[in-house]
């Protein structure tokens, strides 16, 4: 056992010696890995948040039916009954236009100032907010309701959801291409760093081979070096990503309270773990490629 610990110590010592010896290349590798992972992390965070928003919106199986402004109270009551008799409708709630304005003001919080521009006019219509038993019925109910006399428009989350889906799809494709490109760049630079290390130590490697060191004994320090470069890069990426997300969530909670962001914990921790694993894997893969190509053992 003591022997194993000494061997491990040897690996660690050799790894750090080479990291220091190739300071500039190590720095370049760590930075590239960090940059790639930071961008990967940003895309991950954005896409996951959009998905979160989609499911939040979807879970609100609610249809808003906006009424024409000139309806009489009797007509409104009549409409309410008709709507409540539609299949799948579980609740009908009338929202008076003044009530709606109050609600909106409340949601704006600090930024009520925005509304002063409107003066005394109320741009919001009277509306019914109805609940439906199942999400898949939302669309049918909305279509049926919009055809009723006196109804200006029926709206439900669908449009928002489709918009969000469109954005997520674009981000996924764009992000995927960018991330592949950056991951390859990171891999390339790790391969080169390890190649330089192997070259710097070719004498030692030669002697190790002649005295009968096993291939894995020779490989380990290089593999560790690559993994450490990747891990180091991921730590930097994780740091900046956490800072950015904390700042963002704080800002959002203060101003746009209704935007459903994923809470920081444990979300950020999970993303960080994923990034660290990916970083370490990029490093390990990079040194494996380099060892295969440049270390003839």
């Amino acid at each position, binding site marked *: 056992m*003591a*022997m*194993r610990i*000494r*061997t491990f110590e*040897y690996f660690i010592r050799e790894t750090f010696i080479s990291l220091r010896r190739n300071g500039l290349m190590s720095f370049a590798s760590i930075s590239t890995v960090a940059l790639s992972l930071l961008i990967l992390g940003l895309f991950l965070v954005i896409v996951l948040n959009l998905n979160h928003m989609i499911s939040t919106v979807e879970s609100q199986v609610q249809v808003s039916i906006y009424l024409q402004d000139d309806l009489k109270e009797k007509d409104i009551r009549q409409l309410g009954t008709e709507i409540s008799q539609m299949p799948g409708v579980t609740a009908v709630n009338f929202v008076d236009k003044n009530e709606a304005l109050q609600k909106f003001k409340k949601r704006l919080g600090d930024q009520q100032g925005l509304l002063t521009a409107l003066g005394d006019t109320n741009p919001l219509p009277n509306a019914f907010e109805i609940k439906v038993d199942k999400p898949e019925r939302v669309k049918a109910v909305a279509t049926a309701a919009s055809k009723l006399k006196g109804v200006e428009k029926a709206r439900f989350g669908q449009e928002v959801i489709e918009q969000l889906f469109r954005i997520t799809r674009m981000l996924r494709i764009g992000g995927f291409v960018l991330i592949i490109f950056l991951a390859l760049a990171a891999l390339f630079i790790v391969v080169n760093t390890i190649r330089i290390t192997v070259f710097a130590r070719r*004498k*030692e490697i*030669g*002697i*190790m*081979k*002649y*005295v*009968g*060191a*096993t*291939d894995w*004994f*020779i490989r380990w320090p290089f593999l560790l070096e690559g993994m450490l470069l990747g891990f180091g890069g991921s730590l930097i990426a994780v740091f900046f990503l956490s800072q950015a997300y904390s700042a963002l969530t704080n800002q959002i909670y203060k101003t746009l309270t209704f935007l459903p962001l994923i809470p920081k914990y444990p979300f950020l921790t999970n993303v960080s773990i994923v990034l660290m694993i990916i970083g370490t894997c990029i490093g390990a893969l990079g040194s494996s490629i380099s060892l295969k190509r440049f270390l003839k053992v």
Partner: protein
Amino acid sequence: MIKMIGVSKTYSNGCVALSNISIGIDKGDFVFLVGPSGAGKSTFIKMLFREILPDSGQLFVNGHNVLALSNAEVPFFRRTLGIVFQDYRLLPNRTVHENIAFAMEVIEAPHREVQKQVNYVLDLVGLRGKAREYPAQLSGGEQQRVAIARAIVNKPSLVIADEPTGNLDPDTSWEIMKIFSRINRSGTTVLAATHDKAVVDAMKKRVIAIECGRIVRDDVKGAYGYEN
């Protein structure tokens, strides 16, 4: 100890390095391998530690069927050998002691064993007093003695030396040979390829002469046999 049966090697450029060599070297022998440059000495030596594989024939070294070794077995086979080169191949950024200990550390020898054995071989080559110096501070002869110490530190049963005195003056060469002789007396087989007529003639050991890839002479108490 070494057994070659019908070994041939032709390089990819068509150059025939060895053709149909058969030879046996017994345990405890001291053998010189002589011959002009390009005769095949280096190929012969490199085959013994499986740096080069022959095209045909059979080769047994230290009880291993060298041609049948898998890649994973090669390191363990090499641990039974000590190899000394003309250019010493010491690590410049490590002390004498560290250079020798390195050979033991990389095969994961126990720490206490390393300390004991390194001091033992340093005494054997007469460099105990220079253990803390770096290779650049040593003369050529001293550097070669360090290389020999490193080659024998893992207690190999066969020491292979490729032109060990090629870069040294006659007096120093003689000292190096005396060390090999001492190692040989303790039961270790020694095989040295050399151009050094004076040394070969004085030692009166077995001499195998190679020319154009063939063994042209094998004398039990031979002389160099070429005019330098």
